[in-house]
């Protein structure tokens, strides 16, 4: 039976951040990863916001395989037969250190695990953890490939399904309304074509979000991120909504219809799909977080539920990196105390409360409920689309005054609905 100071389950961003931090302090740590290599099972939309995590890993970013620095934001509100798009760019995005970068997880995670290994972490790939080992109620190891591995503490970074925290009794199985499924294609395209098409410079990139009819009124939306020589095109739909609403069709068909939209097709034209991936995304926010620690156990990343969708930003990777970092720091302090029970490990929650991680989750605790308003995915895109149609249309005969056009769409009952929805949106 092998023994380590710390066992980390899962070589995603949370697990690797924890391993990197622990190994940097000379802690004997092993990461157990079920994929062929770190990153082999990992899929993200692909945008990492660097500001919140830059200083947690000094010196890591200069050599990191980041794809493109995002200097152009875009969003498209899709009605059935029309759409409204805006773009934003600003000096703060173009100058200085990048705020966010596109990444491809299989490349990034493999590289990051190499940095953790250089510091002395052991990475065991092709190793599936099937259970926790407990003694007197305290987690003291894992079962992997039929063997027991022991450690003072286990950090569960086992991904969104959170199977180990479920086994440890830290959470119930996830409810479908708290999760969405993301489908994504990686589409290869010449770097120069990407820069020209998205009007960005060398090494610069664009991010674009889509919402509305593409999810047939269900919670969700689309995304497009530019990588160095590929695009990440994806569609996210609530699993709870899909389970309820038969009319929306199946998820792969929604994705195909999204790809074929006249707003999307020209963006990916000439590209060659090289991978088709999918991943489940936590969407429940603060309310749906898992228990974060038990005796001998910490939970980080997606496994804890650390992803936050605010509509205009969709974030998970920074929370994974930061939670892995704070889990590691908690373990380092616990080693000094020589104790790994839940009382000592509760310092993890405290450090997350003091960091941007749980501060964000508290600030935006009502957001998932507000964004679940179906008006946002059907009614408003149609309303805005129809209003713009009438403003832009020049009929054969005389054109109505602009005020008449506005009043036709923005009726009193419409304005009343908007006011009620705006009161909710104000909670974001």
């Amino acid at each position, binding site marked *: 039976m092998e023994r380590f100071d710390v066992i980390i389950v899962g070589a995603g961003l949370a697990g690797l951040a924890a391993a990197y931090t622990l190994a940097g302090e000379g802690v004997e740590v092993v990461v157990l990863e079920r994929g062929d290599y770190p990153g082999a099972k990992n899929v993200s939309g692909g945008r990492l916001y660097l500001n919140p995590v830059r200083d947690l890993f000094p010196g890591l970013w200069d050599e990191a395989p980041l794809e493109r620095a995002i200097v152009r934001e875009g969003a498209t509100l899709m009605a059935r037969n029309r759409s409204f798009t805006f773009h934003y760019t600003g000096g703060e995005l173009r100058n200085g250190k990048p705020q966010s970068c596109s990444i491809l*997880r299989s490349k990034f995670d493999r590289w990051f695990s190499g940095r953790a290994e250089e510091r002395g972490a052991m990475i065991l790939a*092709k190793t599936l953890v099937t259970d926790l080992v407990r003694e007197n109620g305290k987690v003291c190891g894992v079962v992997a490939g039929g063997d027991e591995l022991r450690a003072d503490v286990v950090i569960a970074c086992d991904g969104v399904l959170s199977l180990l925290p479920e086994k440890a009794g830290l959470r119930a199985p996830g409810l479908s309304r708290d999760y969405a*499924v993301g489908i994504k294609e990686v589409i290869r395209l010449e770097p120069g074509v990407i820069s020209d098409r998205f009007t960005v410079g060398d090494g610069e990139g664009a991010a674009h979000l889509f919402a509305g009819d593409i999810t047939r009124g269900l919670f969700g939306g689309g995304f497009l991120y530019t990588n160095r020589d590929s695009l990440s095109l994806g569609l996210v739909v609530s699993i709870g909504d*899909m389970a309820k609403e038969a009319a929306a069709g*199946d*998820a792969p068909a929604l994705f195909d219809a999204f790809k074929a939209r006249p707003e999307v097709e020209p963006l990916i034209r000439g590209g060659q799909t090289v991978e088709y991936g999918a991943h*489940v995304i936590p969407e429940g926010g603060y309310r749906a977080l898992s228990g974060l620690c038990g005796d001998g156990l910490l939970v980080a990343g997606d496994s804890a539920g650390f992803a936050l969708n605010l509509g205009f930003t969709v974030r998970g990777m920074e929370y994974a990196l930061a939670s892995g970092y704070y889990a590691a720091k908690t373990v380092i302090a616990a080693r000094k105390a020589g104790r790994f029970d839940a009382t000592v490990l509760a310092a993890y929650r405290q450090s997350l409360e003091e960091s941007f991680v749980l501060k964000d989750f508290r600030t935006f605790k009502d957001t998932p409920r507000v964004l679940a308003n179906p008006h946002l995915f059907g009614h408003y895109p149609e309303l805005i689309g129809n209003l713009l149609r009438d403003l832009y249309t020049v009929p054969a005969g005389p054109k109505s005054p602009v005020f008449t056009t506005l009043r036709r769409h923005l009726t009193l009952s419409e304005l009343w609905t908007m006011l009620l929805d705006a009161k909710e949106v104000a909670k974001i």
Partner: protein
Amino acid sequence: MSDLKTRLGLNVFKPLPAPHIRIRPGMERDPRLRAAVRACPAGLYEEGADGVFTLTIDGCLECGTCRIACGTEVLEWGYPEGGAGVQFRFG
């Protein structure tokens, strides 16, 4: 659907020694499985004319959507053993 199979064929899959997800015996007609038919990104669930649901495991992206959509009363759900199944090159 055949186009979906072609796209799944772009991915690297290593052989699965045994199916890691199964419809539990006796649950083949459970209506909760309809959610997986709709939500599975790889289109691996089908409902036959006789109302019997089937799952083909080849092409599974291991995303977990079906576990969340249907629950573990209906599905016996696990990850494949280490080194098996889908291996993303881009992710």
